[in-house]
């Protein structure tokens, strides 16, 4: 029963995040959806990833959204859709049908059975290359942000990294 309430709250927040006409409200509803997702992950027996989702999804990303909206300001062009809603609903139905087809019984590929693992040993021993790639990804993201946000006064220069004098 608790799962129903939490999943309902998560979907409610997600719908309002999309439907809201104000960007700031949309970001707040997205944070609520992240919080409900974290609760659902905890109920599924994944407490470590629930904590990470709560701190990153509901905390860091929300702060970034508020920061970005504070700089850009509310844009009035959010009301009109980019494509007809009927076409969007058909595409959504196709996506849901494809996704449901993948999770139907008999369609799932059989995984190799392994014993119970500890998350830390799984991360740092079995998936060490992935962890290195994640660290590289984080540094690449930071460098990208610094390049994008720095030196933006020169007209016609997107990156702002190189200056021709």
């Amino acid at each position: 029963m608790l799962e129903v309430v939490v999943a309902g709250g998560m979907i409610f927040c997600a719908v309002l995040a999309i439907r809201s006409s104000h960007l700031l409200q949309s970001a707040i509803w997205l944070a609520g959806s992240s919080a409900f997702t974290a609760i659902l992950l905890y109920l599924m027996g994944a407490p470590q990833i629930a904590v990470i989702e709560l701190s990153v999804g509901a905390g860091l990303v929300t702060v970034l959204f508020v920061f970005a909206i504070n700089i850009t300001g509310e844009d009035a062009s959010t009301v009109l859709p980019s494509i007809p809603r009927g076409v969007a609903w058909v595409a959504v139905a196709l996506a849901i049908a494809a996704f449901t087809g993948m999770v139907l019984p008999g369609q799932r590929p059989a995984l190799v059975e392994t014993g119970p693992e500890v998350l830390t040993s799984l991360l740092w021993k079995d998936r060490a290359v992935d962890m290195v790639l994640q660290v590289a990804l984080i540094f690449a993201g930071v460098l990208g942000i610094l390049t994008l946000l720095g030196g933006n006064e020169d007209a016609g220069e997107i990156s702002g990294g190189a200056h021709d004098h």
Partner: protein
Amino acid sequence: MIIEPRLVITMAVICLVGIGVYGLLITRNLIKVIVALQILVKGAILALVLAAELQGQIQLGQSLALTLIVADTIVAVVGLALGLQVRRRVGSLDLRDLSKLKG
């Protein structure tokens, strides 16, 4: 009537994916696009952990979900920074204005 929790979570995943795809298709604001992408990825995270739980490999699902969260956060950060630059240079966050740019 007792509702199976895994069925509830499966339905929630499908709903989140549907909401995310709909948001990606229907909106033309850059920041709203990133919001829709975040919702879509939340569905993917839940699906990963649910599949791992069904297979009895919850730690593997958690490690994969961690990778997904990191990648999704980087995508959001870079997307928001791009949105800031677009707003400064074009004066709008509308995706149609971007498609009209020439040169």
